[in-house]
């Protein structure tokens, strides 16, 4: 009887995680969009580079979720609810995001939009490593971004019986949100030329400047909304 009850409770809480993930997917997409879309646009045309980029991004995002799950369970709901540490963490995440985006925009200057870029000789090291490392860094940082659905998931995970349960909760939540990211592979259909890559790089710089400003403001404890 107790075993059945435990099964039922697990089913309900993981179902809740999946529902929360699916429902908050658009919010996650909106939060990750400024980071994900311009960086994806600097990749080469084709589904494979995009699938590889997204896999690295999502895998690192999962690591971010898991890290947060551990912290949430260890410290309880406090970590996600107290405004001061939350602001501090958000500020640091924004600053790191800005740095990675600026580095990404700079390193994408050598992206080759021409078919010659497929050649192994041209691709030695540079682009592929940048893509995976950059995607992983951006995925990890967006994974730690404390958006409202993520905080809700953190509070719920902190109420579970064990750290393993909290980790599974976040894993299921992650799967629910990740479904919304799959269509981004479709950006591979857009034929790249130098104009698109330049626009994407410039957009990354603008977004990075915004994150930099907001990050500094958060670290200084300034209001960033409400004026």
């Amino acid at each position, binding site marked *: 009887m107790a075993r059945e009850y435990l099964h039922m409770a697990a089913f309900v809480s993981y179902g809740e995680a999946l529902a929360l993930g699916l429902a908050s997917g658009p919010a996650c997409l909106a939060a990750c969009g400024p980071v994900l879309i311009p960086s994806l646009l600097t990749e080469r045309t084709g589904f494979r580079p995009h699938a590889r980029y997204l896999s690295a991004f999502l895998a690192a995002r999962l690591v971010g979720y898991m890290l947060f799950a551990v912290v949430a369970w260890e410290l309880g709901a406090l970590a996600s609810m107290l405004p001061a540490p939350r602001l501090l963490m958000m500020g640091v995440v924004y600053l790191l995001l800005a740095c990675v985006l600026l580095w990404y925009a700079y390193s994408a200057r050598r992206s080759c939009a021409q078919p010659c870029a497929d050649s192994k000789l041209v691709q030695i090291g540079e682009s592929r490593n940048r893509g995976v490392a950059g995607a992983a860094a951006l995925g990890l940082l967006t994974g730690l971004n404390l958006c409202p659905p993520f905080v809700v998931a953190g509070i719920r995970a902190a109420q579970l019986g064990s750290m393993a349960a909290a980790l599974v909760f976040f894993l299921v939540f992650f799967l629910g949100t990740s479904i919304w990211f799959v269509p981004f592979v479709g950006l591979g259909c857009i034929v790249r030329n130098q104009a698109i890559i*330049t626009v994407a790089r410039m957009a990354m710089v603008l*977004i990075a400047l915004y994150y930099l*400003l907001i990050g500094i403001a958060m670290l200084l404890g300034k209001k960033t909304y409400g004026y």
Partner: protein
Amino acid sequence: MATNARTLTLTRPAPRGILRSLLLTLPILIWSPLMLLFSPGSSTKPVWLISSAITALFMTALFFMMMRTHSTYHWRRIFFVSLGILFPIEFIHNLFVMRGSMGIPIEEMIAGRTPFCFMPIPLLILPAAFTRTLVFPGSIIGGIAAMVGLWLALTLVMGKGWCSYACFFGGIEEGVAAIPPRAKIRKLDPRWRYVPWAVLLAMVLLSLAIFEPAYCMWLCPFKAVTEYVAARSTIGLIQNVIFILLFAGLVIALPFLTKKRTQCAWFCPFGAFQSIFNKISIFEMRIDKERCKPCLVCQNACPNLSLSKESIARGETLLSCMKCGACVDACPRQAVVWHIKGTQIAWKPERARLMFLYAAWAMAIMFGGTIIAQGIATILHFVV
């Protein structure tokens, strides 16, 4: 014989006769007073009637000169600069009457009383599609719906012609660009043309992420001469400093140094968005490759950097063309022509020009003319 006919058309056409020009102006002569007297902001007060009459005469006279001289850019610019100067006068006056300040307090935003301009239109699309919410603190019925409806109707016909005949911001920099006799900075990196697309991409994505019109909050240079966020915090202060710096740089200093509309060509995300509609509009500029030398006079004349050597070689303008007519007027060989898609290039270009100008000028009177009349009424209110 055919060669002779070709050679003859290379000379600039003689001015039209006064009677013929008047006949061509007749529709505008009728349209102007009707539009101004029955526009939404009209009244029967003497000040409004006088300002409407002045505006109607002004718009009709400019159109008459366009017909008589075959020239478009010069006369359009007079209208456009007037619009650019009179819009802030009227708008700021209204702000002071309504709320006593140019700063919008947060309470006004929450109450949905922020005036809506066309700039945030592309920023509203994704949040509206995802959440069925408009991320602008304005009234839908009182302003947003009317502006979006008007913009859509005019854009489908004119494409990016909006930026030369309706935008109430571009006139300031066009006026500044007209001041110096020649450009001090001539060599302009063509990669700057990509910036408006980057601003558009960044602002659309950020607007969805932070759920507010990011461009209006952070980057609009024209906040400096219209309305700004009431700076009650450090962030508000930083935003206002950004607005002023962008205005001083892109709308005053760079147009003066380059004789180009630098804010439009190098920054405006709405202009980039509007460029897409040039694909839909039936009107465009084309270059008759048989006549073109190419001497690049058109490229130098273009205020929006919408011509490049490559595009001239292809016989077309870039996607960002605002259909202002500067290239057509500048070409010494009549190689740049107004064109209706689906017809042969250089097939009755004056007919294409007339069709475009009737549509564009009717729009200019309806939208810009009303603003000019309100600006004149504001000045009369102070003077008389």
